[in-house]
């Protein structure tokens, strides 16, 4: 549900439309330059936030806190989006509620508690560490630890390389004969 702006441009002579009549090298360089610009600019692109100007708080400090909170609250409709990224109606209501709580003087923890009281741990994009989630939190490090220990044991067990037996006199003679220029 991210916003996408599509403005297909069909104007003639746009630098993106190759023109055979002007198939000169300088023209190609020009095209390359602009293409590079487009690529460079796209590196700065990030997903558009769904927070609308009319929702924002006049106090920039409070608004910044609201953004921080909004980014870690999960939209209950879109599952994989934060409420700041979602255009869903419910997400907008939640953003409004976050701002109202902040204006009322709540600290961040209280705002999170407010949402958890209504939607459960589900709304937290970073789930809390508790009985139901320990496997989630510890599973990764645990597997890494097991793999590390296994690797260490395997490395210790590995037999040292035995140097190959040296050549017999007969073999040495043949080798010398072969290597003779």
């Amino acid at each position, binding site marked *: 549900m991210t916003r996408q702006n599509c403005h297909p441009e069909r104007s003639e002579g746009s630098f993106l439309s190759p023109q055979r009549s002007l198939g000169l090298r300088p023209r190609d360089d020009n095209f390359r330059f602009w293409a590079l610009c487009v690529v460079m600019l796209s590196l700065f692109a990030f997903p558009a936030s769904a927070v609308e100007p009319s929702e924002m708080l006049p106090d920039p400090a409070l608004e910044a806190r609201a953004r921080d909170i909004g980014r870690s609250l999960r939209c*209950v409709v879109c599952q994989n989006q934060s409420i700041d990224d979602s255009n869903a109606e*419910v997400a907008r*209501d*939640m953003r409004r*509620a976050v701002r109202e709580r902040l204006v009322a003087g709540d600290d961040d923890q209280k705002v999170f508690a407010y949402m958890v009281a*209504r*939607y*459960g741990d*589900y709304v937290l994009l970073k789930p809390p560490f508790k009985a139901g989630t320990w496997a989630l939190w510890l599973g990764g490090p645990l597997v890494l630890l097991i793999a590390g220990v296994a690797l260490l044991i395997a490395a210790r067990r590995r037999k040292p390389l035995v140097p190959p037996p040296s050549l017999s006199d007969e073999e040495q003679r043949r080798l010398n004969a072969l290597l003779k220029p």
Partner: protein
Amino acid sequence: MNRRLLFILPLLTLVLMAGFFAWSLMAGRDPASIGSVLVGRPAPRLEVKALRDGEPPLTDALLRTGKPAIVNFFASWCTPCLAEHPLFTRLATRDGAVIIGVAWKNKPPEALAWLKRLGDPYKFAGADLEGRAGLDWGLSGVPETYLVDGQGIVRRHFRGPITERDVNETILPFLKGGR
């Protein structure tokens, strides 16, 4: 022995994963379900202005009458609401259920026209135009339905339209037993 382990390990992994997938598919597990924290707890506050002209606003007192109540959030623009509507009509007329309807993000004239067209099963009806009550009730959309017992404790929370089966297996026993 070591070599045999090497052969068995991938097989074991496969069996474990297949088992997990089979369980995920068959245990009726819905990863999209967001659950509800309200069940077993006192109902959130109900402060909604009346949908119908000249009626008093909805208050918490409606949920602590000693009689079980059904709270249903709906909207005239919502198709699943249309689907479940006849069930509420029947619950109200045949089974005498107390149903409290809240029109969520729905202009009162539109909600009223919808109820006029389809019949109005709601003993009390409120209009939550801005979705504030919805947020307090942990709403993720419409329709959602809550069974609230006589002491004001939420016993069930249905996200999405209720079905004939919900009525027979959950709602009717709840209305009789109050749980």
